[in-house]
């Protein structure tokens, strides 16, 4: 049978497929399409670095320009994953250096990156352009110096909330004078001072610089100089926003900001001195993104800024904004898509701030485009949740954290089952949900019944029995990521829904009632899953089979066993060689 469609045409058609899911689907159509697609896929996304290994990746995709990898599970952000667990990027970098000399972009999230990795990156890829490290650790400023010194064509260096061993601030000076291609620099997470003159020279010779996020040590008085050198900036993060109150400093700051006609994103604002806030007023109406979550200043000052941000789409703020401030948001920010409210003092029992469920209800009423919410508060009611769900059926991401575990509806003292049930029932496009407060098995029944598009669910201190977990695993058709802590879920639901786990990226359960025996059985029954028991107790071998494990992390994999596990991680139910399941390789990655 002749194939009448020329390869070049097919390749051209595929070049319009940008989403990995679309490419995966195309690759399953037939052998020819699989072959064609794999040769021209340039961008790779691996959501769990242990689901595949570098060799599998390289064998299938020979012409890769951009790689994105994720390592540790999400709960690592909250210290639930012990140090040394894994997520080492080194073996990947070594293989990429060997096989992809034209690699241009590396994006890593929650991975361990060493200085050696950064050195390899800086030397192996001649056209390297983009390095984005999110919540990564394991490297020092020496690694950054290597990147600065050697990546001649670097465009993006973005360090998001990384843990960096800071030996000196001198690394920035390693960018050579001939280096002019910088488009984006984010060093907000670093605490050591960098040479301001080196920074200023770097900014001056980077005509394409669009994003500049400084760290806390860059003084407010010097910011105007930088802004004057880069009036084309679209995204700016200040350093510490405090200085002695001096009119000359204020006016140059104000003038510098008003010169930034393209500025759309503003962040930073550590240690904010309210008197200097009006300096940004001239750009407020341009802003689509505003992050005031390090601005420890009271509601009235915040309101003065926000009330001018008519075009805001994303707002990140502390609970200092209070309900009154959120009323202002509801009235002013008619284009708002995302609201994030962090707690200023989460470890204190009683609130000092007047932020309640009412603020969120108000925004849900006033902002018709609101899709994504992350909200920390101290009280919630079913009626508020029901209102929110009815106001905003277009919500796609709803994450609510009531600070006190198992807090009931503060008006009726009932569980919040009905409230969250209303959220999943009315918000039919909901893809991400995090719950808190007092919740019984009933809420899981609602979720299993209605949350058909739910992709990620986070649960803590909730439920009564295995039935809760069963409802979710059996009902949520689109579920890919499930993370659970401190819930009374045991073996039954897990074993009964074992095959569901193959359709998911991962399941995390800590401080629940899953037993060693069940983990072993699951690992034996399901060769396509790694069932990792993470348990730091001594003498684990002396514990009975029905004893609950501290933590279990279950994920599908074509890679077999990990070879880099610390002693507190055991992959259950597999022999020493692991199981390398070749047949799963053919499925879209």
């Amino acid at each position: 049978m002749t194939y009448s469609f020329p390869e070049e045409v097919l390749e051209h058609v595929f070049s319009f497929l940008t989403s990995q899911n679309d490419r995966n689907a195309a690759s399953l159509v037939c052998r020819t399409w699989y072959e064609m697609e794999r040769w021209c896929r340039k961008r790779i996304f691996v959501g769990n670095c242990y689901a595949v290994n570098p060799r599998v990746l390289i064998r299938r995709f020979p012409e890769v320009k951009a790689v994105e990898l994720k390592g540790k599970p999400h709960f690592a952000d909250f210290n639930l994953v012990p140090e040394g667990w894994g997520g080492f990027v080194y073996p990947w970098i070594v293989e990429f250096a060997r096989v992809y000399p034209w690699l241009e972009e590396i994006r890593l999230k929650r991975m361990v990156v060493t200085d050696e990795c950064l050195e390899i990156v800086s030397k192996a890829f001649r056209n390297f352009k983009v390095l984005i490290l999110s919540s990564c650790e394991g490297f020092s400023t020496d690694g950054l110096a290597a990147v600065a010194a050697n990546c001649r064509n670097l465009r993006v260096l973005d360090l998001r909330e990384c843990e960096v061993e800071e030996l000196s601030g001198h690394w920035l000076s390693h960018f050579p004078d001939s280096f002019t291609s910088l488009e984006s620099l984010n060093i907000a997470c670093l605490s050591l001072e960098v040479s301001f003159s080196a920074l200023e020279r770097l900014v001056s010779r980077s005509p394409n610089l669009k994003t500049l996020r400084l760290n806390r040590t860059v003084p407010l008085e010097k910011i105007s100089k930088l802004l004057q050198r880069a009036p084309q900036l679209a995204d700016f993060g200040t350093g510490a926003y405090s200085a002695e109150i001096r009119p000359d400093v204020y006016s140059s700051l104000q003038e510098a900001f008003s010169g930034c006609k393209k500025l759309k994103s503003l962040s930073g604002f550590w240690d904010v001195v309210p008197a200097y806030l009006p300096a940004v007023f001239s750009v407020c109406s341009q802003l689509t993104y505003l992050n005031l979550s390090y601005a420890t200043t009271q509601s009235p000052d915040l309101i003065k800024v926000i009330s001018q941000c008519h075009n805001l789409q994303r707002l990140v703020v502390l609970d200092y904004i209070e309900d009154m401030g959120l009323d202002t948001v509801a009235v002013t920010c008619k284009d708002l898509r995302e609201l994030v409210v962090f707690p200023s003092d989460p470890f204190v029992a009683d609130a000092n701030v007047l932020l309640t469920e009412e603020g969120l209800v108000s925004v849900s009423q006033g902002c018709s485009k609101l899709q994504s919410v992350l909200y920390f508060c101290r009280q919630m009611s079913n009626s508020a949740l029901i209102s929110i769900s009815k106001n905003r059926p277009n919500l796609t991401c709803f994450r609510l954290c009531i600070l006190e575990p198992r807090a009931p509806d503060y008006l009726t003292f009932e569980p919040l089952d009905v409230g969250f049930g209303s959220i999943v029932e009315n918000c039919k496009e909901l893809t991400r949900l995090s719950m808190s407060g007092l919740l019984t098995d009933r809420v899981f029944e609602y979720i299993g019944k209605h949350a058909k598009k739910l992709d990620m669910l986070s649960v803590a201190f909730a439920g009564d029995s295995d039935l809760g977990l069963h409802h979710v695993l059996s009902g949520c058709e689109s579920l890919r990521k499930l993370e659970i802590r401190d819930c009374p879920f045991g073996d039954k639901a897990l074993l009964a829904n074992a095959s569901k786990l193959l359709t998911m990226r991962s399941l995390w359960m800590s401080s629940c009632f899953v037993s060693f025996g069940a983990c072993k059985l699951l690992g034996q029954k399901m060769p396509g899953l790694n069932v990792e028991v993470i348990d730091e107790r001594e003498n684990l071998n002396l514990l009975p089979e029905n004893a609950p494990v501290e933590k279990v992390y279950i994920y599908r994999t074509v890679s077999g066993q990990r070879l880099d596990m610390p002693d507190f991680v055991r992959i259950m139910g597999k022999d020493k060689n692991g199981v390398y399941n070749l047949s799963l390789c053919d499925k879209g990655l």
Partner: protein
Amino acid sequence: MATEGLGLEMTELRLGLPGGGGGEKKEKKRVLLDILGGDDGGGGKNRNTGVAVGWPPVCSYRKRAIIKMYVKVSMDGAPFLRKIDINGFKGYSDFIRALENLFGLGDECEYTPIYEDKDGDWMLVGDVPWEMFTETCKRLRMKKRV
């Protein structure tokens, strides 16, 4: 929270308000009293003792940047106490150095740092992972070595 000893009470159905029933932990009792409008004599800025590790889910980066956790530090023989923000450090080495600076102590340290944890026990500083320490430390004491 479901440590080995915590048994299966959590899974039992019960009627009544949360926290009711025998042997409840101190923080559940507080919630109950708060609901009833009772005064548990603690009022005001009580540290949320008995909270599990990693709760509320605020990432360490943000905790260090924003959240101040001032705890009292006493030193044997010193006439007054000091306060230190344990959230302001990346790890034990920074922290110990800061403690030593606070009291003007040199390298030949005659003092051992100990801390009172959420269960009221006095523990040696340094045994548990740093993040766990910041979440469970209630107060510190520089104990003179004998």
